[in-house]
Every structure is written in structure tokens, then in C-alpha cells.
């Protein structure tokens, strides 16, 4: 009995050693999947993880990977906790034939912790729709990619949307806006941009903080009721979102006047609020729905074979899930781009993928090819611009699902970009970094 166990153990070890050996020859592109499946933010973590990994699976079955290079991954639970996130990163960064392709930390805190590590290890840190805003300046942050739309950009798009709704930007003059934010780094981040815009357009902004976790907001909404604002910006996270909507209902504030950020705009943020959520508007850099070709391909190639990540199949096509698909597409397309330069059909290193990311240009035609027209916005990255998109769509909850109510609304880069560059320059100064000269990059 004992001997068999021992032999089994030896056999396992040998097998493990063998697979380690085998890596060097196989054409695989390894992507760490460090997300969170437990805790208060599990709906977001598990949905995004599911979307991204299902997209990889679909690509592996449908196309046999990226030019024949199969995608592989390993999951790691971060619990949305910095220390765990760093451990996951360190554990997974050398896996696969070329090490980690890039990593989605899926937490602003973890992203911050990985900025230096990623730069040293030459592994791109990709934070799609979160993370450090000023890292959009690729000259100072060569390996950090806050792709698509930063919080600052998003915020200017929101103001633009409000202006449109009011019938022109000049109508914002004298308007009152309340910024209801989560008491955290994430929540506070848009305050400077809002203040700058308030000056520009002449509206009045009041910042009201909700302390973590945000399951009590009576006092805040009483204040809002006193102010009687034209708009309320909801910068929430987790339980703060449904609580805000409920509290708005209790205070008699119309939900059509509340505009959330994309971390306040998933099904999971409104369903718990029940009827109170009806009419609420949220920004998004991706939309919900499963009738896009890319999602249908996932259904066909993955779920039809019973290999999907989501236990609850109704979540396929939800906001978080589709966001994960966007994560997946950005990942694979960066690799594809890198292969164009460094060798088709070869696994790419982190450094090569960084080049791929910086030269990524996903225009409408490209998106159509991916089956993602309207699913996500066109992206054009560059050495200096690690954001690439900067557009937002607005969607409204009708009690059952999110309805898109606007086209892509672009942000005010004239305002945001100088702020990003100033902030990045300060970081560079503090850390003694000499920014890259992008004209010399190929």
C-alpha cells in the first residue's frame, strides 16, 4: 500500500518534470489568470475571468490559437488583495515557454504594486478600465497599459453626455453636480478632473464621500436631497451601487439623473436594488448582450461542447462577461501584432507583446473581423498613448437589461492629456526616470 503511494508520488514528480521540459518545444502562449472568485467583488472577478478564458478557449478550438500558437493559462486567486496578487504575479510570471505574455491584475491596488515589478521583468501590466490613470503616458510607463479609457477620460465623456442631454454644453453653466464617490483610491481619483471641468463649464460640483463598504448611505442622500443637483455621478464599487440606488429611491431622487462609472454599471450592481434601479444610467467601454458574433462563436465552440467557464450560463453576455471578452481580445490581438514583427507562429515574450500593444490598431474593419462591431470601441495605441480609445457608451437599465442609449462618446483629451502628462512627469521626477523619446521607437 505504502509503496504504491510512493511510486505514484514519484511518477507524478517525473510527469511534472516532463511537462516542464516539454514546454520548451511546444508552441504555447501563456497568460496568467489571476482573478478573484470569492469575496465581495467575486461577481466582477468571476465574470471577467470567465469571459477572457472562454474567448481563449474559443480561439484555441476555432482557429487553433494565434497562428498556431495555443493559448494556455493558469488561474490564481487574488481575493482582491495586494499581497495575494503580487504572489500570483511572481508565481506565474515565468510559466510557459516565454513567460507571462502580459497580466491583467484586475485591481487598482495590485496594478500599483506591479508597476515596478512589471517594468523590471519586462511584462506588460494591462489594466483595462482601471489602474493608474497617468500611466497612459507610455513614455514614463513603458510597461503599463491603462487601455481603452481611463477614469479621467471617462469622466469628461460623462460631462459631455450630460451637456448633450441638457441641450448643449453651455447649459451646464450654473448646473449642480454631485460626485458621490467610494472612500478609496479608486473613488477619489476623478476629483481633480471634475474640479477642472467645473471651472471650464461653470457648473458647481460637490464631492460627497461614502465610506467603505458603502452599505449605509442615508446621510449622503439626505445631503443630496438638500442640494437638489441636476446630476449625480455615482462612483461606486460593489455593494455601494445598489445601496445608492435604493437610497436615491428613499430620498425621492430620480434615477434617470444618476450616472455611474462602468464599475457601477453591471447587472450585479442593479439587480439587488430591484425596481429602484429602473432608469439608472451607467457609462461603459463595452456593452452587454450575446447577439454579437464573437459571443455567439463562444457559445458555439465552447459552451456547445460543455467547456465553458461560467457555471451559470445566463451570465454569458452580461456586462462583466463581455468585459472579460474585451480583455481577451486585447490580449490575443497584441500577441498577433507582435508575431507580425517577431515571427509568425512563435510564442511571444513580454517585451515583444509590449511592442504589439503599442502598435495595436483595431479600427472598425478590424473589429468587424473579430465579430465585435459595436461590442467595443476602436483602439489605436502608440508609444506615447497607452490609452488608445477614450470613448464611452451610455446604457440605461430598464429593469430587465441594459439598453444602449448613446453612441460612442469621445472624451475631452485636450483637458485630460495635459493632466496625465503633468502627473506622469511628477512621477518620473520622483523616481528619477528619464521618459522615452517616442520618435526613436520603431
Amino acid at each position, binding site marked *: 500500500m505504502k509503496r504504491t503511494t510512493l511510486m505514484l508520488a514519484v511518477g*507524478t514528480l517525473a510527469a511534472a518534470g516532463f511537462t516542464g521540459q516539454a514546454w520548451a518545444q511546444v508552441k504555447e502562449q501563456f497568460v496568467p489568470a489571476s*482573478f*478573484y*472568485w*470569492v469575496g465581495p467583488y*467575486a461577481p466582477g472577478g*468571476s465574470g471577467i*475571468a470567465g469571459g477572457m478564458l472562454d474567448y481563449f478557449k474559443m480561439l484555441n478550438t476555432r482557429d487553433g490559437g494565434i497562428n498556431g500558437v495555443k493559448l494556455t493559462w*493558469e*488561474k*490564481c*486567486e487574488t*481575493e482582491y*488583495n*495586494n*499581497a*495575494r496578487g*503580487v*504572489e500570483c*504575479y*511572481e*508565481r506565474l*510570471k*515565468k510559466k510557459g515557454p516565454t513567460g507571462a505574455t502580459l497580466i491583467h491584475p484586475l485591481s*487598482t*491596488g495590485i496594478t*500599483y*504594486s506591479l*508597476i*515596478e*515589478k512589471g517594468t523590471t521583468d519586462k511584462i506588460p501590466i494591462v489594466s483595462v478600465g482601471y489602474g*493608474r*490613470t497617468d500611466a497612459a503616458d507610455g513614455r514614463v510607463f513603458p510597461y503599463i497599459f491603462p487601455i481603452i479609457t481611463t477614469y479621467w477620460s471617462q469622466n469628461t465623456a460623462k460631462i459631455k453626455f450630460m451637456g448633450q442631454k441638457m441641450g448643449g454644453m453651455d447649459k451646464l453653466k450654473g448646473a449642480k453636480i454631485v460626485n458621490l464617490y467610494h*472612500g*478609496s*483610491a*479608486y473613488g*477619489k*481619483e476623478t*476629483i*481633480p478632473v471634475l474640479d477642472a471641468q467645473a471651472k471650464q463649464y461653470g457648473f458647481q460640483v460637490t464631492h460627497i464621500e461614502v*465610506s*467603505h463598504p458603502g452599505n449605509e448611505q442615508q446621510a449622503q442622500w439626505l445631503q443630496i436631497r438638500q442640494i437638489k443637483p441636476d446630476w449625480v455621478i455615482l462612483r461606486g464599487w460593489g455593494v455601494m451601487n445598489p445601496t445608492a440606488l435604493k437610497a436615491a429611491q428613499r430620498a425621492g431622487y430620480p434615477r434617470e439623473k444618476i450616472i455611474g462609472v462602468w464599475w457601477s454599471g453591471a447587472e450585479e450592481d442593479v439587480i439587488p436594488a430591484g425596481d429602484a434601479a429602473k432608469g439608472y444610467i451607467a457609462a461603459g467601454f463595452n456593452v452587454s448582450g450575446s447577439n454579437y458574433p464573437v459571443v455567439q462563436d463562444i457559445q458555439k465552440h465552447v459552451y456547445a461542447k460543455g467547456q465553458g*467557464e461560467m*457555471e451559470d450560463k445566463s451570465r454569458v453576455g452580461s456586462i462583466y462577461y463581455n468585459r472579460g471578452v474585451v480583455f481577451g481580445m486585447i490580449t490575443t490581438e497584441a500577441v498577433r501584432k507582435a508575431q507580425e514583427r517577431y515571427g509568425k507562429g512563435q510564442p511571444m515574450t513580454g517585451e515583444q507583446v509590449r511592442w504589439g500593444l503599442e502598435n495595436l490598431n483595431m479600427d472598425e474593419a478590424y473589429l468587424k473581423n473579430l465579430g465585435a462591431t459595436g461590442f467595443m470601441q476602436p483602439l489605436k495605441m502608440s508609444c506615447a498613448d497607452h490609452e488608445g480609445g477614450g470613448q464611452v457608451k451610455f446604457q440605461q437599465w430598464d429593469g430587465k437589461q441594459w439598453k444602449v442609449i448613446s453612441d460612442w462618446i469621445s472624451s475631452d483629451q485636450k483637458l485630460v492629456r495635459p493632466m496625465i502628462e503633468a*502627473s506622469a512627469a511628477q*512621477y518620473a521626477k*520622483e*523616481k*528619477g526616470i528619464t521618459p522615452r523619446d517616442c520618435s526613436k521607437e520603431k
Partner: protein
Amino acid sequence: MFYREAGQFKSSYAEDQQIFPIRQDRIGITALLLVVFVAVPLLGDQYWLSAIFTPLLIFALAALGLNILTGYAGQLSLGTAAFMAVGAFMAYNFMLRLPWLGVIPSFILAGLCAAAVGVVFGLPSLRIKGFYLAVATLACQFFVLWAIQRWGWITNYSASGVITAQKMVILGFPFDTPALKYLLTLSIVTLLALLAKNLMRSETGRAFMAVRDMDVAAEVIGIRMMHTKLLAFAISSFYCGVAGAMYAFCYLGTVEPEAFTLDLSFRVLFMIIIGGTGSILGSFIGAAFITLLPIFLNVMFGGISHLLGVEIPHAVISNLELIIFGALIIFFLIVEPHGLARLWQIAKEKLRLWPFPH
């Protein structure tokens, strides 16, 4: 058979009061120090150094700090993370505003700031005991985090409240690789652990334990209650503060106030309960147990699903990890309420007598 003190006679009280009175222990600890100071940095790869050993040592230091307060002086505190936060953010400020100070003095000053905060929030301990005090320390936990987010000066007016640790250069020598950061952490932790051990076997340590075991009797034999309790808060917070500074500088590199939530306070409390209250060694064992167990479970489940060839949904794995983590805590509390350090002690006693049963 090989582990016993027969034949080792003490001829002075000084010898009797050594930290490791038994020769075999002294050999063991020397070997251990050689391994961690020489072999680990030489052989360990980046993953082990920067993701396992360094945080483990930092958490051990925080646990040691809490152990001084809770384990030795008997004052239950849930504010550990707040003291760490003070240390982290003040170290950043000292380095930023007084760059000529140097890394180590900045750490020490940051620790002293944490100690000052500790004393202020330790004042209620003069009137309040037990769980009431524990809940009262939550006031500290929440207030400090709030203040850090609120007072822009502390984060140098960063919009998000996140700070980036400066480069560490000591005497012109940069500590920038995982191995060097590990060595720096190890040196500080070893030194502070030694100081704590000395302190705990001296008058101060005895006063702490006296206050813990029976405060009325302690007062009657002349131990000053206020002085002793506040000193315990100060020393404990100092340790936590230094641990916080290292958490920012030697480990993560950037920190946000949310890194120091109540969760972290609880985690450190776990470490001392599982490791052993009132034991320096226990702080280390506890830190190792609490930091390594979730990682071990995560890796193990990954291995199991790989072996079986079936893919277990990750949500199941993550939740199982949580359940096993909780169950193991309960299990160890039942098996040895005095912590793993006590198990180690019992094992040593058994070993001393081995192979004779009594």
C-alpha cells in the same frame, strides 16, 4: 537521544539566562541563521524571495509587534493595520521631505510616529478591558485610514492617495534586487526580534506579563499600570510601524491606504493566535502558517485538478480554500489553544526524554 542537556552545567546565572540555554538549540539556531542569511539569498529564486520570504518576514514582524501588546501585555487590539499604515506613510514622508535622513533613520522615525499614535489610542486601555478594548481599537483602525485619505499632506497630494516608495539607498549602496531587499528585511527583523526577546526576558517583559495575568496584583507590587500599558502600546506600535514601512519599501513598492484594512489586522491577529500568544517564535510560525496556507491550498488544488485531468470550476476551488482555511484555524485552536509554538515546545520536551517514555 541527541537532544538533551545532560552534561551541560550552568556555572553562572548569566549562563542560565541565555536565550538558548541548551547547546543543541544554539547549534540549530546558528545553522538556521546561516541558511536564511546565506543559502536562501544565494539559492532562492525571485519568486521565493520577493513573494514568499520577504512578506513572511514582514508579517512576522507585525505579528511580533501585536504579540508584545496582546500576547505579553494582554491588551487585545484590532488596530494593527492602522499602525502599519502610519509606519508606511510616515516613512514615505520622511524620505520625501528629509531625503538626507537615509532609509534606516526614516524607518525608525516612522516607527516612532506609529508608537505615538499607539500611545494615543492606548489611553482607553487604562479604563477599558477585553473585548470592549478590542472594539475600541477599531476606532483607531478606521480613523487612521480615514485621516490618511483625507489629509493630502500625508500622501503628498496624490489624487488617488497612492504613494510610491522611494528607492532605498543605504550608504550609497542601492537595495533594489529581491535578494537585497530580502536581506535588508531579514536583518531588520532578526535584530528587532532579538531586541524583543531581550526586552521580554527583562523587567519590562515581566511587567507586561504581570499586567496581563493579574493587573491588581501587578499594581500592588509596584508596577505602574499606565506606564506599563502605554509602553506596551508604544513598543508594539513601533514594531508594527516598522513592519508597515517595510511592507511599502521592501515588499510592494507602492501602497494605498486600502492595503491596511481591518482584514490585515485580523490576519495578524490570526498569526499570533495560531502561532502562540506570548511567544516570539510563535509570531514567526504563525506568520508562516497564515501567509503560506492559502498559497499552498491554491497551488495544491491547481495540482489536483491538473492530476485528475478534470477542470474543477475555480469558484469551487476558491471557496474550498476559504472553508479549509477557516476549518484549519478552528482545528488548531481545538488541538492546541496555546498555538503552534507550544506544540513545538512539547515536541522538544518529548525529544529531550526520548527514547524513555517518562
